[in-house]
């Protein structure tokens, strides 16, 4: 009884001891914040990686792909059919994306993935990442009415300009075909020509335009049909091309600082409805360069800058056609990979080993989990977080030595009281437990406050980030550098528990030595001096 009473009284009257646990509080709070941020980072990243990459991926080693798609799928079904929730065949290939902006062509290396959106959606949350597609709908390759209207508008305008140019060529130009493929023309700067008002109506009433813009009602239709370009293409330039793509948002948008407000805004050079040019290689040996134009159906924004600035999804059949992956005799279409979504993602390793056995022998296939594919990135985050944990735990250990020092002082100060207690019949163990429980109480207070501070910090981390940015004028968490638009956090209750527990253990360990010393005080020695 006297132990807890004295321990509580010491806690209430010895503020210097509370000061000694501030570093412990800070250490605990920092550990919680760092772990939550790191965990949030890797959790979010895993989610997004998985959304894009699926749980398990069967890949061919050759870029030519595997023609026996159905056989491959059957084998997979037979081997691990019970564990599979969804499966989609894709063609993955390196490519060059070229976008015309104004009079300039911009080219970027990309990973081109031919997908079937409907089956791809069963493997990962594709529609969630498409900017102009609602999350609930199944994504397809059709343009939205707005995109369609926009497309009509700019193709019409481009056609009109080309037409005018044909009738009245500029004197300086030579006799070359000015634009070989009108559909590859990009939206130009605001129209400068006279009949500008004619083209404002499509913007104002999009639905009407969508209806209007069939070839018959197009005022330029007649001329268009007569133009050289359409003879080559044999179709209405206003309708989308055969090739359709979802383009990574980061590929076609650039951050810039608004000169008026100083805010960072995104400047987008491609909209759904525009056309882009894609260059890649054909299947076969040696691979031949090939290129095609494709209409942008939607933008893809996973908010993982790595993917947003490197992925282009294309309609699978068209890519297969362009790459010569369709066998002209058997009509068999080759694919390069099959993405698999599992019912239980934890089974990935088991599924991988089963698939490795089931797939045809030879070095034709690789079976990997998404984690294998992104291993180095995830491992880097884990190593980083482990090192930080060690360093931060050292802070708490340092706090432990602070407690040790303060406790020695307190036991010296309390020498006489210890003597009194012993004279009153308190045992050495009793004296020791006073100081041990005092240490535990300090640890409890220190880590308790630390947990509260840490959790509050995590809860308001984005507000704090904004505040620091405001104070220092320097962006702390820059979206251009990190993967995410704002700091993602994930609080793991067990992590909080272990951090707090570790801090308390250190506080108790630090109080053992002073407590033993106190317990060994000789009562007479303690009482002798006033």
């Amino acid at each position: 009884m006297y132990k807890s009473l004295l321990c509580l009284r010491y806690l209430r009257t010895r503020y210097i001891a509370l000061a000694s646990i501030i570093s412990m509080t800070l250490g605990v709070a920092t550990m919680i914040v760092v772990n939550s941020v790191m965990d949030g980072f890797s959790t979010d990243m895993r989610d997004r990686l998985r959304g894009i990459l699926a749980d398990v991926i069967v890949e061919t080693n050759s870029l030519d792909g595997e023609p026996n798609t159905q056989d491959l799928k059957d084998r997979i079904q037979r081997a691990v059919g019970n564990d599979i929730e969804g499966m989609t065949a894709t063609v993955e290939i390196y490519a060059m994306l070229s976008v015309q902006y104004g009079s300039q062509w911009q080219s970027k290396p990309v990973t081109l993935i031919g997908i079937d959106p409907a089956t791809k959606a069963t493997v990962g949350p594709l529609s969630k990442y498409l900017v102009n597609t609602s999350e609930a709908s199944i994504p397809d390759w059709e343009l939205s009415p707005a995109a369609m209207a926009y497309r009509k508008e700019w193709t019409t305008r481009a056609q009109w300009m080309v037409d005018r140019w044909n009738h009245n060529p500029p004197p300086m130009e030579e006799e070359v075909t000015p634009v070989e493929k009108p559909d590859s023309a990009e939206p130009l700067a605001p129209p400068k020509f006279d009949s500008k008002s004619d083209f404002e109506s499509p913007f104002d009433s999009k639905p009407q335009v969508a209806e209007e813009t069939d070839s018959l009602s197009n005022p330029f239709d007649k001329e268009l049909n007569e133009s050289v370009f359409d003879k080559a293409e044999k179709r209405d330039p206003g309708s989308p091309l055969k090739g359709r793509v979802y383009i990574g948002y980061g590929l076609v948008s650039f951050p810039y600082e608004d000169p008026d407000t100083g805010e960072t805004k995104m400047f987008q050079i491609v909209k759904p409805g525009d056309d882009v040019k894609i260059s890649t290689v054909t299947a076969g040996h040696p691979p031949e360069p090939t290129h095609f134009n494709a209409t942008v159906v939607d933008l893809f924004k996973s908010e993982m800058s790595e993917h947003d600035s490197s992925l282009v999804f294309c309609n699978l059949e068209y890519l297969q056609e362009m790459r010569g992956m369709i066998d002209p005799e058997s009509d068999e279409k080759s694919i390069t990979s099959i993405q698999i979504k599992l019912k239980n993602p934890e089974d990935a390793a088991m599924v991988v080993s089963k698939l490795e056995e089931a797939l045809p022998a030879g070095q034709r296939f690789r079976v990997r989990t998404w984690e294998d594919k992104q291993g180095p990135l995830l491992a880097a985050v884990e190593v980083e977080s482990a090192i930080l944990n060690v360093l931060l735990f050292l802070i708490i250990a340092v706090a432990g030595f602070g407690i040790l020092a303060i406790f020695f002082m307190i036991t010296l100060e309390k020498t006489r009281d210890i003597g009194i207690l012993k004279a009153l019949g308190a045992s050495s163990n009793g004296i020791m437990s006073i100081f041990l429980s005092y240490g535990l109480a300090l640890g409890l207070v220190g880590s308790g406050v630390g947990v509260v501070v840490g959790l509050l910090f995590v809860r308001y981390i984005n507000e704090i980030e904004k505040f620091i940015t405001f104070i220092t004028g320097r962006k702390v968490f820059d979206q251009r550098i990190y993967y995410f638009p704002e700091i993602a956090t994930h609080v793991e209750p067990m992590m909080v528990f272990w951090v707090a527990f570790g801090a308390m253990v250190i506080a108790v360990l630090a109080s053992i030595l002073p407590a033993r010393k106190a317990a060994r005080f000789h009562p007479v020695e303690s009482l002798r001096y006033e």
Partner: protein
Amino acid sequence: MTETISMPQPQLAAIAVEKAYRKDKHKIPVLHGIDVEVNKGEFLSIVGQSGSGKSTLMHLFGLLDTPDVGEIYLEGQQIDDLPEHARDQIRNHVFGFIFQFYHLLPELNLLENVLSPLMIRYSTWEYWKKRKQFKQDALEIIEKVGLSHRIKHRPSELSGGEMQRAAIARALIAKPQILLADEPTGNLDSSTGKEIMDLLTNLNEQEQLTIIMVTHDNLIAAQAHRTVRLREGQIEVLGKSKSASVPA
């Protein structure tokens, strides 16, 4: 302790006790073979100058220290060689201590200080069950020493005489058989000292409490039944005994 032994024997006895302190390499002898006995209900004072070993003798009686040579007997049983746990128990149950500098715990108020021996004796649970009874007892004893108006005060808010009375109350709460008082008036002015002495005398007379009091003041010592005088660790004169035998 039972009264099974019919032969009259001293309640507390030190037999041929020697004690020396070590300071660095030097051995400083304090007590050279002391024999002191005290009977039940007796008020014994031990007088001597500073360094005569009187406090050391009292510490040996109170099991705060162990003799180098010799034995301490309580009711005929040797107690100085008991294990530490048993010694703690005896200190708590048998002896009540009063010190020159009161030695109250500064963090606790008067009531809590008085209750502290009971807190030490009982486990938290037992104490909690009996806390009302204990508080009642404590209030009675505090009333007896005349401090009822001070129960919520911290020691730092009390005068010297009040602190010493609080210390006496603390010594009495555990219902000790023997009260060990080390210079109880040494730090008080003469009138306050007299109040304390009256209190001790009353306790001795009314409650038959055995008291061993250490003092350097002959006048104070004279109020006891018997005086043992120490000089350089040896007994100088054995008592101007008022009443060597004690009323039973």
